[in-house]
């Protein structure tokens, strides 16, 4: 009903609303940055190395795995393989959002892909689904990326500073912030039965496979969930189509 107004949003308005939408996930990511900084120092990495990981790798889960693997004396090959498998989910993210960036030039596309995270993906997927696209929607996206990036770098730095003073900061349970945030993103997205089935199948398979190396259970769970949800939806579509006839 207000589609007209939405397409007329200015760049400034997109930036402001992008920041507002990203603020909750920035808050939930801060404990992770903090813990990563502290843990990196505790595992014997130099402050510069810890900081560089957050600024150049910019992938919380891969950074944590790398530190854990370093601690077990793993080689570079294993760490790189873990990074690859762990982050394959970003292929799915990019495929989901690509329709909304196709019209942008390559500099924009590079920036928006290199800075894509779980959190920004969740924010953008929701934005495009609920509000649709708009001429300046990529500013919303860019703001979300930038917010997550600066937030991640800042809290890594604080973690490095605190790391030497608060041993065991990683055992405080701060990482639970990510759990409740993702729950808060998933629940409203369960908008029909196929989505419930997809989520439940993903949960069961990921839990059964949690002990697999490189968090493979995560990827298997996601694929099984997508398959189950899609199958149910296709059956419903066919039934609906035959009812009409």
């Amino acid at each position: 009903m207000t589609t007209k107004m939405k397409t007329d949003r200015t760049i400034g308005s997109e930036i402001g609303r992008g920041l507002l939408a990203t603020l909750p996930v920035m808050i939930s990511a801060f404990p992770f940055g903090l813990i990563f900084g502290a843990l990196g120092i505790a595992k014997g990495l130099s402050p510069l190395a810890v900081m560089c990981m957050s600024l150049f790798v910019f992938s919380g889960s891969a950074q944590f795995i790398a530190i854990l693997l370093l601690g077990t004396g793993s080689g570079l090959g294993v760490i790189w393989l873990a990074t690859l498998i762990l982050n394959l989910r970003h292929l799915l993210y990019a495929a989901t959002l690509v329709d909304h960036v196709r019209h942008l030039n390559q500099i924009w596309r590079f920036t928006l892909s290199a800075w894509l995270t779980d959190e920004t993906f969740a924010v953008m997927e929701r934005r495009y689904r609920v509000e649709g696209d708009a001429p300046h929607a990529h500013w919303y996206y860019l703001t979300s990326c930038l917010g997550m990036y600066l937030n991640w770098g800042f809290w890594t730095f604080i973690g490095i500073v605190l790391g030497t003073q608060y041993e065991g900061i990683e055992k405080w349970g701060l990482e639970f912030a990510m759990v409740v945030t993702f729950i808060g993103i998933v629940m409203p997205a369960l908008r029909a039965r196929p989505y419930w089935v997809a989520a439940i199948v993903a949960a069961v398979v990921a839990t059964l496979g949690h002990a697999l190396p490189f968090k493979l259970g995560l990827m298997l769970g996601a694929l099984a969930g997508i398959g189950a949800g899609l199958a149910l939806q296709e059956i419903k579509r066919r039934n609906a189509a035959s009812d009409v006839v």
Partner: protein
Amino acid sequence: MSEIDIAVMIAGMALINLAIRWPVYLFADHVRFPPIIERALAFVPVTVLTAIVVPMVLYPTDGGEIQLTWRNPYLIGAIVAAIVSWRWHKLMPTILIGMAVFFAARWALGV
């Protein structure tokens, strides 16, 4: 590992991340997914995020036993957060109430 090894590790990880994240956007002009794939991709958020979170809740200690009991503060906090989110669809209250319940449960259970 030496500082040089660490630098190589970081550079490699950065390149791998880019190699995963960039190509779909880079070749966006030539990439068009068939409708069935587009419909499948609509399930990505709910499945991937759920697959990240649920094992974290059920296995709060890495490598430990599954903790499907009310003595697991992660499980209690997650269930309350899910109810709050399902009922009100608001992210910030979900995060704050979920965290509060989690820390309260941790304190009450002494774990």
